[in-house]
């Protein structure tokens, strides 16, 4: 099955800019975001057999990235509880590509949202997915998605005012 595998790899490469944007909305800093994208890409390739022919590669891969992020958040929570580690290097910027100040402001506001609200905002407002697609990726009913989205929006409006 070399052809589907090559298609998948090409599809993932084409999707990298959007995966990076989604991860950046979740993580804030570029390095962590790219680590997350890398994990998602590797998992997508490892679990290629689970991709149904009728499912959208973008939605499927976003779901993998979301799950990887939640795993990472949990692991980080455990580490923080165990070691109370200061997050050194949390906001390491790439000196060659300083992010625009507007992006930094928006990222700082996003970082203050609870994880589930940030996820809803990232999928619907930044990635432009429908409520149905976003709810599917988050594995929640649409009503749950919309209430998280509404609360996240409300907070962002105040923070960015």
């Amino acid at each position, binding site marked *: 099955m070399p052809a589907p595998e090559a298609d998948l790899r090409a599809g993932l490469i084409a999707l990298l800019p959007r995966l*990076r*944007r989604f991860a950046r909305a979740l993580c804030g800093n570029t390095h962590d975001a790219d680590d997350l994208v890398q994990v998602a890409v590797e998992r997508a390739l490892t679990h290629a057999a689970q991709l149904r022919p009728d499912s959208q590669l973008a939605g499927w891969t976003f779901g993998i990235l979301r799950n990887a992020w939640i795993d990472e958040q949990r692991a980080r929570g455990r580490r923080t509880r165990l070691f109370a580690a200061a997050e050194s290097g949390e906001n390491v910027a790439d000196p060659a590509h300083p992010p625009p100040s507007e992006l930094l402001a928006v990222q700082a506001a996003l970082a203050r949202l609870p994880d589930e609200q940030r996820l809803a905002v990232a999928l619907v407002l930044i990635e432009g997915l429908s409520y149905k697609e976003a709810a599917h990726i988050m594995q929640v009913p649409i009503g749950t998605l919309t209430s998280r989205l509404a609360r996240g929006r409300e907070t962002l409006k105040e923070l960015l005012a």
Partner: protein
Amino acid sequence: MQAMTFDDQTLMAYADGELDEAARAAVTAAMAADPQLAQRVAEHRELRRRLQAAFEPVLAEPPPARLLASARAAGVPGRVIPLKPRAVPRWSWPQWAAIAASLVIGVLSGALLLRPGTGAGPILARNGQMLAGGVLASALTNQLSGTQPPNAAVQIGVSFRTRDGIYCRTFVLQAAAALAGIACRERGSWQLQVLAQSEPGRSARGAYRPAASNLPPAVARTLDALIAGEPLDAAAEAAARTGNWSR
């Protein structure tokens, strides 16, 4: 007529284009009669526009080489053996070389053919530096990433140049253990910059087997640290081979 009231979630769904036709028409009509309602919808739209605009530049960034390499060769992350510290403030190079060499020998013993002096094994130690030998050196010198057979013992990932113009290549070596690393062409030999052990790709009931193991995070980070610009495209890679990978 009493103005209709809508809760915020309905207005939000309106701004997001998620209402059905009837509800949409009702909100549109109410907005025409109620500037405050129109203002609330405008605020929802403005927030959406602002978030999208803020993240727009991310889409234009070229993806880092390590992500491209991952998409081309993936599997399971493994243990890491730093051969050459990238930014290690406290330890001097000879200490690192000794530790790295002992780690490598520990990891490779039995699993890989490390035969100092014979030149037949894929990894050689010479003067405290790890070099590619045997099939690895041959693949690094001869194989092009676009045309390599999927079952080759060595899979080349990407080829690139450092800021100094030195050619380097990422590889995965399939032996008893799968090893991923980066080798750079210096003084006529391939010097290993980083090497990490990784598990071979799991075959999910034979349905899918990656052609090569993945690029473990330490290798990926070394790649990002070394690379200047973009990885070589097929033509540049072929030209570099023709020039025997010399600067």
